[in-house]
């Protein structure tokens, strides 16, 4: 059994954990909610898993479960990015108003 590709995946997993920790350092408190919302949109990456599960050859049962996963993940992705953008638009408007 060739485990090398699997080890490579575990390697990426470990490095990504450290990178994720390093990326967040000093975040101003007004940005806590948008940052949470923005990274929530990224966790909608589960959409890729749902897409891959929707293969032509699968049984109807697995197809429909995968379809449900795809719908929920799409809500997460599209809604997540849009709501974050709206939050940040308001945040920017507030900031500019303050500076004037």
């Amino acid at each position: 059994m060739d485990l090398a590709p699997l080890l490579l995946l575990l390697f990426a997993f470990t490095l990504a954990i450290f990178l994720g920790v390093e990326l967040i350092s000093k975040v101003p408190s007004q940005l806590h909610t948008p940052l949470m919302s923005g990274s929530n949109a990224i966790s909608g990456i589960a959409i890729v898993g749902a897409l891959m599960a929707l293969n032509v050859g699968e049984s109807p049962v697995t197809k429909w479960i995968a379809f449900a996963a795809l719908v929920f993940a799409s809500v997460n992705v599209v809604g997540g990015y849009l709501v974050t953008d709206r939050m940040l638009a308001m945040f920017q408007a507030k900031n500019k108003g303050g500076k004037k």
Partner: protein
Amino acid sequence: MAVVINLLYIIASVLFIFGIKMLGHADTARSGNRLSAVGMMIAIVATLLYGGLAWPMIIGGVLLGGAIGAIAATRVPMTGMPEMVAIFNGLGGLASLLIGVVEFVKIYTVKGGVETYLTNLAAQSGVTVPAWFAALAIALTILIGGITFTGSLVAWGKLSEKLPGQPISFPGSGILNILLLLTAIGAVVTFTIAPSGACALTTVIVLISAALVLGVLSTIPIGGGDMPVVIALLNSYSGIAAAFAGFIILNNVLVVAGCLVGASGLILTGIMCKAMNRSLGNVLFGGFGSAAGKAG
């Protein structure tokens, strides 16, 4: 084609990294969010390059989910945004849970059980994994996805005042939580050892139920004011669930993006606790303490 897809996945991962980094600074936050959206677009398009996909269902699902998400996100009033994020996060967790269920149903229904499943998986992904590894990834995806789903729903209920905001706890809830967690861990171990066969279906049903109840019971003793911290933590969970889903289908962009969210979400949770002069343990278990205090 696999090479092109993986190169696109690398580009998407880089855009996610820059996106998260830029979201943490006031002047770059909005472009950071857009950059990560572009990354998501690239990851989706790359995945569609795999052949043999059921196009009508894919187009229908993306349009349906996308429309619901877009309408919800543009209609929600500013004050309702945190609870909207809670719902979105819950649905992300549910999606991961369902991916785990799909892969379980494949193992359960395919002739030849887990061996045939692994052969098919190796043909699709080019990676051969041991049976226990595939089973463990499926079980953990279901567990963490389930906790994220119902936990986020409770957080949404508390923020939108559909559930009472004050901590709800009852005598023995701490012990019940521990028992549930032990049951869930037991189901994960059992499924990892025996992913196909007579008991597998029961094991998975027990696992799903324990995860869903655990999500509710671990969130409900926390006060409404602490919900933003809880959502940040649940967001971290949904990232981890996505990363485990990536280990099931052996997809590196799922693993990397899920992990980034998992780790950065955990750090953000810590920062938010610090801003409130609280420790994470105090936020998560404070409800138990206050209930015990009242009882005494």
